[in-house]
């Protein structure tokens, strides 16, 4: 059963999209991530124009993250104040990102920047995750004690001006680092169509020193707000959000995510992180491949003609 996507202007197989949504949803539930970094490359490979893939994926991430946020809120694992501060930065970042993306699209460089961002960010983050978690796995094998994250000394940037109390995270820190973190992730959500959880979670643990119990819920809350703003801006400025595409992916995604979340209880966190790190690394390298391999055709039609 083929469905015509009104904004992407291509026909796709609807059950295939739903199944794809379910598969990526399963992986996101399993690893506790948004899944945008996986879905955007797959959509691009399927022939969806990258601008449409990026914008519709922001919309899809909004929907798929909402149900997780609700689940985390029940467990009181969301720091709404911290999430709100980061989302304020996220709004600024997504505004900047959408304008930059618009400009790149008109220059015919959108594809390049999408591939390059995937290559740089995913390869680095994937390699870091993989080495950190493999180290943990090896140490466990040898029966050594696991390294514990340092919480003893607070970094200097916590004492910058505009300090604020975050009771749930048990922090009293300047709002500047979380706002800047939000700005960065907002830019990425506009350019890469990702929620940015893969950057937010480690940054919140190692830079903001938030307790691990509230990190995932808070990052998802921030992601919902930032991607919601991004998709409104993408629709308003670039007209690239395909609501049919996003909805089909959501239908499969929300179901897959629930099963993934149940299965995740059975694995050790460091094993999951190692597998996730490997996937992130491979996706990054795959997207970067297009920059290195000699293109089949030396010419390419750029969008934004009419």
């Amino acid at each position, binding site marked *: *059963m*083929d*469905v*015509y996507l*009104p*904004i992407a*202007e*291509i*026909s796709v197989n609807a059950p295939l999209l739903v199944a794809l949504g379910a598969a990526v949803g399963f992986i996101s539930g399993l690893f506790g991530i948004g899944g945008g970094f996986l879905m955007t490359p797959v959509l691009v490979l399927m022939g969806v124009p990258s601008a449409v893939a990026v914008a519709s994926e922001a*919309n*899809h991430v*909004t*929907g798929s*993250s*909402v*149900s*997780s946020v*609700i*689940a985390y809120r029940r467990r009181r694992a969301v720091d709404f104040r911290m999430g709100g501060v980061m989302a304020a930065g996220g709004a600024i970042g997504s505004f900047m990102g959408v304008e930059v993306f618009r400009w790149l699209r008109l*220059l*015919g*460089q959108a*594809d*390049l920047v999408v591939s390059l961002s995937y290559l740089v960010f995913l390869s680095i983050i994937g390699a870091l995750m993989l080495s950190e978690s493999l180290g943990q796995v090896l140490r466990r094998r040898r029966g050594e004690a696991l390294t514990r994250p340092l919480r003893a000394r607070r970094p200097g940037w916590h004492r910058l001006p505009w300090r604020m109390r975050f009771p749930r995270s048990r922090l009293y820190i300047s709002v500047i680092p979380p706002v800047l973190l939000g700005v960065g992730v907002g830019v990425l959500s506009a350019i890469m169509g990702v929620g940015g959880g893969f950057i937010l979670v480690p940054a919140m643990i190692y830079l903001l020193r938030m307790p691990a119990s509230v990190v995932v819920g808070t990052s998802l809350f921030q992601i*919902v707000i930032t991607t*919601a703003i991004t*998709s*409104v*801006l*993408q*629709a*308003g*400025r670039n*007209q690239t*959000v395909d*609501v*049919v595409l*996003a*909805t089909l992916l*959501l*239908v499969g995604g*929300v*179901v897959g*995510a*629930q099963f993934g979340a149940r299965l995740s209880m059975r694995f050790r966190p460091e094993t999951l992180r190692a597998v996730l790190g490997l996937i992130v690394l491979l996706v990054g390298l795959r997207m970067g491949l*297009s*920059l*290195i*391999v000699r*293109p089949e*055709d*030396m*010419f*390419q*039609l*750029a*969008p*934004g*003609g*009419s």
Partner: protein
Amino acid sequence: MGVALPPPPPAPVVLAPPPARVSAALTDTRIQVSSDFRGARIVLYGAVFDPERARHDVVVVVRGPEEPVRIVRKVRIAGLWLNTPPEVFRGAPGYYMAASNRPLAEVTGFAWRRRLRLGVDNIALEQEAQRTETLYGVEGVLVSPLEEDYFDFRRAVVRLKQREGLYAADSDAVRFVDEGLFRADIALPAAAPTGRYEADIHLFRDGRPVALRTRTLTVEKVGLERFLYILAHERPWTYGVVSVLLALTAGWTASAVFRRR
């Protein structure tokens, strides 16, 4: 379209036959793009009226709405394949199909093909930055800042559009089904742009155009697709807010459903 037809023959002295005429009609003048759109087939029927019953050739050119084409070239910089800034071509049809009963080169010569813009090599493509100059005493010479690369770009535009099924020439698409009665089958891919299309039916005799008919058809989105497309382009902010609300509702519903289980 300003097509120069040969002047009518001199006033008949004796009983000279009237000139040949061509008549044609489309089976559908509205092509509707809905959620199950996988492309369409345009069927055109026509008849040649010629008292002399000479052998004629028919060329049907279907052109979609004009839209500028932006094309980039890959260049290798520091080991990475990057895009050059786009070159813009104006006046390019969004869809182009030249259907004929035999290869265009057999129907008529190069001069007529170029003048009547028959065949994918003769599609009007004007580069935005090009200008006309007088060179070596020849007036109206087109000068492109791309210089000799211009032809590479032009060929690339045609090649890329052909790959998407948007530009094509088919020398089997027009068939004479009965004496003087012909039928043209034209494939419209799913990627075909929406808007007003023109079908020019050229009648050739001995390599010279003798008659022309023009028919129009509309390709339009209908149903939900039309509604969403129009909303997305005319009320983009409303569309954005609605799509986010839809995503939020879907996520919330899913969480409510799975909690109950």
